[in-house]
């Protein structure tokens, strides 16, 4: 039935992007049809083979969670997770951006600092969470710090790549018009860095979310990650998968937002 889809969808770079752009009914129909087949097929197979709910719950059981009274609890804990994510990311991303913009102007400083940034990028921040909890208790603090530490270096290292892109001719053009160092920065360097800055912001946000949930699973008793621990240890799989679904949708939303932002601010590239 969706075979009559005249490669209108294939021509666009990503199905998601064109779907967001509201391009053509045909694509929307195809997306819904595929989702219907996947979810319906899953439901059918799980029922047909009589798979127990605690191994893999049916889509309908997961869907039912969203209508149940448990949803209030899940929603509340999701709110905690979002607070950690936004707070940690705001700190991490802004520090990362400022560092990237400043450091790339001073090659010597950059050489000295880059190894430490790389160290932060490659160290799984989750591993530090027990230590952070030891130092900062079971509240928001260790999680926000972990999110900032996970997202900041990601933002920084990508943004720095962007700020390092120097186009002598474009800078000469600005200078020939009498541009100051600040004007060269705002009118040439920042726009040139923008595509990489947005990539950094996106990766940073997604790493931040992963770290927030992971940190919650390490202890503290609140947040969606702690719900995951609770539900899995009590074999409440429909609730468990409902939380996973919420996190997946959050991740996709982050991706879609930065995709949109990238088109708006750096659409000139590619």
């Amino acid at each position, binding site marked *: 039935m969706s075979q009559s889809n005249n490669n209108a969808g294939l021509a666009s770079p990503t199905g998601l992007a064109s779907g967001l752009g509201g391009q053509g009914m045909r694509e929307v129909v195809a997306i819904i049809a595929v989702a219907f087949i996947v979810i319906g097929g899953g439901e059918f197979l799980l029922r047909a083979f009589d798979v127990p709910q605690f191994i893999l719950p049916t889509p309908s059981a997961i869907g039912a969670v969203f209508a149940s009274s448990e949803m209030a609890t899940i929603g509340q804990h999701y709110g905690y997770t979002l607070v950690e994510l936004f707070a940690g990311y705001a700190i991490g991303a802004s520090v990362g951006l400022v560092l990237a913009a400043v450091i790339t102007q001073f090659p010597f400083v950059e050489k000295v600092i880059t190894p430490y940034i790389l160290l932060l990028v490659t160290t799984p921040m989750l591993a530090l969470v027990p230590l952070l909890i030891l130092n900062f208790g079971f509240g928001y603090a260790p999680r926000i710090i972990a999110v900032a530490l996970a997202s900041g270096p990601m933002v920084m290292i990508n943004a720095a790549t962007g700020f390092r892109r120097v186009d002598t*001719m*474009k800078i*000469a*053009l*600005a*200078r*020939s*018009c*009498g*541009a100051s160092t600040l*004007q060269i920065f705002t*009118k*040439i360097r920042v*726009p*040139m860095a*923008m595509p990489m800055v947005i990539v950094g912001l996106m990766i940073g946000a997604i790493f931040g979310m992963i770290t927030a949930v992971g940190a919650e699973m390490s202890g503290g008793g609140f947040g969606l990650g702690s719900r995951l621990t609770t539900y899995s240890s009590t074999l409440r799989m429909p609730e468990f998968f409902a939380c996973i679904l919420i996190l997946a949708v959050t991740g996709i939303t982050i991706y879609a937002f930065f995709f949109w932002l990238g088109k708006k601010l*750096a659409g*000139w*590239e590619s």
Partner: protein
Amino acid sequence: MNQTTDKALNVRGATKTYGTQTGGVHALKDVDLTVRQGEFISIVGPSGCGKTTLLWSIAGLHKLTSGAIALGDEFITGPHPSIGMMFQEANLLPWRSIRKNIELPFEIRHRRPDAARIDSLLNRVGLGGFGDRMPRELSGGMQQRASIVRALASDPTVLLMDEPFGALDAFTRDEMNKLVEEIWLESRKTVILITHSIAEAVFLADKVYIMSARPGQISRVIDVPFPRPRSLDLMETREFFDLVNLIKHDIQHQPKVPNAARGAA
């Protein structure tokens, strides 16, 4: 043409040395040059002869090691609002629309863009209605037209052109040369053109300056006698051909310098 020397461009004893591990390289040595207001000159020479260094110094983008450059009675020590510059390729900022690109010099100088002048210039170069397009939507020739508008929008006295049409195909290049001559006849800017194409240099200029490398010096000045306006047919005449060959011969028989010793310019 009137000999208005009030805004003549004068270069006196321009010398530029670059320090390298093997010692200093003379990119320019004691270059003297006078361009009358409204005159169109072109500079040709082998790569590494310092012609770009000379042009960038006039633009205020390079500091001379010694010597001076003056526009009228004003010394040029940095970028000057009366000097506009066109770069190799169009050098448009890809994140700005054509109009926003043209407005950049105004923005940098905190001046309100002259919208009427920009519109009439856009129409003049055949880009009327393209102001809101992005550079990537335009062909190479159209992009270069936009960069002409950008250089002329603030009505400079002097226009510097740094190999502006090197990346264009031969037909587009001829077309651009014709357009540049027309615009020059209408506006009578003082123009200095740097080019690798001797035909282009001869077609456009009143005088062709030949430079030699190591050290970068002006070795010869040739007056171009052809009347204006010039048509593209001129390029097929014997006289034109002879003049081009004369210049080519002159450049080829400059004292040879080993390739490795050529400085960057």
